[in-house]
């Protein structure tokens, strides 16, 4: 763990060296998610509610997903960039070192500029928290925190899954975007609005609804069942099969030889 923080410090420092380009990309990341916000704003200006969810409620949902995504992307960026390690053959170097592969991949990269999205999420929360009609008792605050934390773990699991697939195909990886970027984009709205089938898919196959939809129901008072607030913890278990898959891929890895 101490080694992890040492790596982290190193990566942070190296990125702050290029201050201007860092700020530019930070701003860019912010604006990218700002346009997503603007999209929701324009649409909700026209429709006011979607399946009875109000604009501030949707913002709570969106900002928790966005915060999870950007934190996961910030820290698990190494897995996101993993296909490049395979392509360039740098993975061989990693395999030679006396530390776990997953640990080294995790510490190989840290994308601080991705925090631009986090900034956007925080702004939206600041706007939505007093307006969404939730009485912010301790357990509601805890629910939101658990939602975000659970989301970070599920997105990290998806990035690990993505890295795992790169042992089998490099070119065909694009389909995973549907589950990483796609979840971020379509997770703007509570997953139930897409209908029963989609909700089931994102409950039982990819446990996104476990940190996005069900605890959200409790958070905004559509349900009084406190157990819903604990579901993100169950969702976080998703990281186990994903790591297993990654390990499976690692075992059949053959170097590209370059």
């Amino acid at each position, binding site marked *: 763990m101490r080694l992890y923080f040492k790596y982290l410090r190193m990566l942070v420092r190296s990125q702050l060296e290029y201050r201007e380009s860092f700020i530019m990309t930070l701003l860019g990341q912010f604006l990218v998610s*700002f346009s997503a916000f603007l999209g929701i704003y324009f*649409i909700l200006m026209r429709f006011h*509610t979607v*399946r009875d969810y109000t604009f501030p409620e949707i913002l709570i949902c969106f900002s928790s997903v966005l915060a999870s995504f950007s934190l996961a992307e910030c820290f698990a960026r190494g897995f996101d960039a993993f296909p490049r390690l395979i392509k360039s053959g740098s993975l061989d170097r990693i395999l030679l070192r006396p530390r776990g592969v997953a640990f080294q991949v995790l510490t190989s990269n840290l994308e601080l500029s991705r925090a631009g999205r986090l900034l956007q999420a925080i702004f939206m929360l600041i706007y939505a928290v007093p307006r969404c009609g939730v009485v912010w008792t301790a357990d509601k605050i805890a629910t939101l925190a658990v939602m975000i934390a659970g989301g970070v773990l599920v997105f990290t699991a998806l990035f690990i899954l993505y890295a795992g697939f790169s042992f089998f195909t490099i070119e065909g990886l694009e*389909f995973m975007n549907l589950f990483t970027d796609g979840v971020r984009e379509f997770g703007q709205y509570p997953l139930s609005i*897409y209908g029963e089938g989609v909700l089931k898919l994102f409950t039982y196959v990819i446990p996104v609804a476990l940190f996005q939809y069900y605890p959200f129901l409790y958070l905004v008072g559509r349900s009084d069942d406190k157990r819903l607030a604990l579901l993100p913890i169950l969702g976080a278990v998703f990281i186990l099969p994903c790591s297993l898959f990654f390990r499976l891929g690692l075992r059949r890895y053959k170097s590209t030889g370059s």
Partner: protein
Amino acid sequence: MKRFNLSKAPVGMKKYLSFFKIRFIAGLSYRSAAWAGVFTQFGWGFMTVLMFKAFYESSPESFPILFSSLSSYIWLQQALLAMFMFWFFDGEIFDSITSGGIAYELCRPCGLYAMWFVKNMAARLSNAALRSVPILLVAVFLPKPYGISPPDGILSAVLFLISLILGFLVLIAMSMLIYISAIYTLSSAGVRILATSAVEFLSGAIIPIPFFPDGLRAVIELTPFAAMQSTPFLIYSGHIDGDKAVFLIGVQLVWLAALGLFGVFAMSRALKRVTVQGG
């Protein structure tokens, strides 16, 4: 072709055609990437349709466009994504600018603007060629308001094709400006990410322009952003027709000429400043 003539040598159409061919065929060889793309874009389109369905059912009277028109728009957008996604840039061109490889390009007896233009066209078209057909085929067979419907008539189809070609050219003329800005600034990552998010939003790639607030919509319709994917897709779906369609095609023509001329001018100025360091 006279106006593209940046180098001293005479410029013919043929060599651009071969640049086009090389890039097009290279693009066609990424088959598994294409299948993955088809899967992704189909899923994306499917989710987008479901999302708008939720809005439609929440308040049908606020819907600014027929649902079947919107579905056609979404499926065209997904099928032709490779043609109209602004964030897709040719990494080789940026590399040639930062590495100095641009010097070799300048030695060739052809105009740099036209060459880059053609390369970008080919790369996008080959990606789209592989991906669009399977997506459209599935979308045709989806149940009624959720799939893609045929165009509104022969006139719509013809206007759509004209507008599609123009929209594609406007988009490339706009993305040329990003490449050209890289000649000035060398590091273009910042400009690129800012321009990309602005263009994507204003061109109706995130939400279709009919969903914008009314005042804003009227203004955006006249900008080069709407002249990219929005105009052709809305003509196809019958949301824009008749005189308005002809007028908006005119707008596309004007922007194509303006962006093209400006690009050629900016590039010739940029190239005067280029100093390639030896090595």
